[in-house]
């Protein structure tokens, strides 16, 4: 066996229940395993256990054992967190350096790994200049350069548009060869044909372990994105919670916007939006779609008046709701309740906190610390907190990415209800299932339809 969990349990510090609960699971050499489960079911923790992070980097109570034979290579959820050097070549070299290899062998492995993931001529490129898809491939190359026996991939495609997601999957399948592979994914249909076995976790336990064919017809948790299952029904939000104080139309003409990156060695400007003309109306949910890096997020920022355009005209309203992609960046308070009250209080507006908490499935969590919520809970809190003052314009950046069906239905429901009751809603998304009234397709910073 390459990986063997034997009666393994793990409870993180401050955790009230085990994240992994008496887990028994083995992975054979060369086996390709898909690991799925609702948010908080313990998928990432299982990968962390294999990677040796539990009890060292992450602190908590463990019992049972995890045995791993051979070297592991892991691509973490957010590839930007694994970048350790400013140039592509040096970043891939990090693993071989740790192994104490001689210099010529290091570079042989770097070139080999970069060629394998399809970045053959990029040794000297700046890692900061890589696109989202390229970052994933860089992280994969970094893992390959240590010549691992097991590849662990934590949601390798969740942040990517469908085209890039397939390209990334194909890159993985090209390099995996005879290695064992463990893939964790929420929207997993694109992996199903390429794995030997599927394991479903729920609340830290294995609830299904079998072939892909059996998996397709198995009774699995409702929150899973099973192929063929209808899109979840968005959860309605009461009109009083989302009806805008004042309906607003936002129009932009010939908008040109630069992203400014400030580093140690001065600032860099990249043109993100090139001449966008668009009008957003009340009672309409507009989805900005297009490939990763097309300028969707920047367009939203500019429409909300949160980034100053280089040229062009936009008249953002004085009151907006803005839900960033990383929910934690929006948090300002030390309790869920105060987080939701913050903006309404600043604007001297009444707010029914309990009704809002109920609407996003956080009833009874008012006293918790926002930073201590799970990923899905944070996403829902961020939405409620950014929209609690019932703004006329509501903007959300990738609001459904990486969420299970439960959170998805609440988020999609909120955005849809807000639009239906008079708000002007715009999202940047590559989720084809998110209900919307209208698409604006962006490509390289321009609206093509």
């Amino acid at each position, binding site marked *: 066996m390459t990986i063997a969990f034997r009666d393994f349990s793990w409870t993180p510090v401050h955790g009230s229940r085990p994240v992994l609960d008496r887990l028994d699971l083995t992975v054979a050499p060369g086996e390709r395993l898909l690991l799925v489960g609702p948010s908080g079911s313990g998928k990432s923790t299982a990968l962390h256990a294999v990677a040796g*992070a539990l009890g060292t980097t*992450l602190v908590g109570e463990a019992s049972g054992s995890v045995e791993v034979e051979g070297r592991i290579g892991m691509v973490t959820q957010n590839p930007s967190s694994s970048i350790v*050097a400013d140039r592509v*070549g040096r970043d891939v070299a990090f693993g071989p350096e740790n192994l104490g290899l001689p210099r010529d062998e290091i570079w042989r492995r770097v070139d080999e790994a970069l060629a394998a993931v399809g970045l053959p001529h990029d040794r000297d490129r700046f890692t900061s200049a890589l696109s989202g898809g390229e970052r994933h491939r860089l992280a994969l190359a970094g893992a390959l350069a240590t010549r691992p026996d097991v590849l662990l991939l934590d949601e390798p495609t969740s942040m990517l548009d469908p085209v890039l997601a397939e390209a990334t999957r194909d890159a993985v399948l090209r390099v995996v060869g005879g290695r064992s592979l463990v893939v964790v994914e929420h929207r997993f249909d694109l992996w199903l044909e390429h794995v030997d076995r599927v394991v479903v976790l729920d609340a830290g336990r294995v609830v299904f372990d079998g072939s892909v064919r059996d998996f397709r017809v198995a009774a699995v948790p409702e929150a899973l994105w099973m192929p063929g299952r209808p899109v979840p029904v968005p959860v309605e939000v009461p009109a009083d919670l989302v009806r805008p104080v004042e309906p607003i139309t936002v129009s932009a003409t010939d908008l040109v916007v630069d992203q400014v*990156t400030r580093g*140690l060695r001065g600032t860099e400007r990249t043109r993100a939006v090139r001449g966008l003309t668009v009008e957003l109306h009340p009672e309409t949910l507009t989805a900005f779609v297009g490939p990763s890096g097309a300028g969707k997020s920047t367009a939203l920022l500019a429409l909300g008046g949160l980034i100053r355009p280089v040229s062009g005209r936009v008249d953002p309203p004085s009151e907006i709701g803005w839900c960033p992609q990383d929910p934690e*960046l929006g948090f300002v308070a030390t309790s869920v309740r105060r987080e939701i009250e913050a*903006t309404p209080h600043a604007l001297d507006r009444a707010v029914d906190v309990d009704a809002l908490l109920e609407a996003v499935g956080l009833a009874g969590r008012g006293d918790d610390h926002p930073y201590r919520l799970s990923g899905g809970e944070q996403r829902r809190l961020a939405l409620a907190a950014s929209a609690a003052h019932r703004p006329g314009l509501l903007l959300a950046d990738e609001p459904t990415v990486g969420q299970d069906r439960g959170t998805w239905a609440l988020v999609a429901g909120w955005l849809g209800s807000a639009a239906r009751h008079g708000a002007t809603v715009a999202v940047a998304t590559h989720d084809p299932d998110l209900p919307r009234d209208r698409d604006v397709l962006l490509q390289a910073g321009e609206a093509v339809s």
Partner: protein
Amino acid sequence: MTGLLTRLNPLVLLAIGLTAALGSPAVRTLPIALAAVTTYVVFVVLTVPSWRYPALCLAVVLLPMASVAWSTWLLGGRDAEVAAVAGLRTFVLAWPGAVAAGYIDVARLGDYLAQSLRVPGRFAAALSAALQRVAGAWRTWHDLERSRRARALPRRPWSMAFALLVHTIRDATRTSIAMDARGFASAGRRTWAEPATWTRSDVSVLVTAVLLALLPTALHLISH
């Protein structure tokens, strides 16, 4: 203006500033101050690629120079010459280092710290990894500012700094897990993909920097 500074290794560039600062207390009289200032100006003019950056540095260094000179006049016997020397001493202390720091190739600093100064390899590698996250820290800062603006909340630097620190520590956790998955935890004897070479220019500028820093002391001894 030869642009020599752009071709030096990071340790030499750090040494220019450090030696200048360490040598500055010996600047105690006006003639010595003028000599030290002149030699550093000549040295910088000979080695920078253009006058713009040193001029910018001079503009920012003028603030501490003014502050030290004025307070020395006010609180140190109201002697104009002593105050002027204090201002010029601050110039020697700050300006050469500010200019040299602008040309440091941050990405190579870890290589040189580990290979030339024998700083422990894992520490040097962690420092290198952290140094290229500066752009990320700025981006986070802007995002924090934006979400507060959108939420009609005051943009208090204190609360934003706190959020930045929370974000930084969480990112450090994720980065540590990713680094350990690439063999960092057990990297007892790390190797380095690029050598830390010392060119003839590196050595000669280092020697020059030491000599320049010793000049005030030497002049002081001679004049006695």
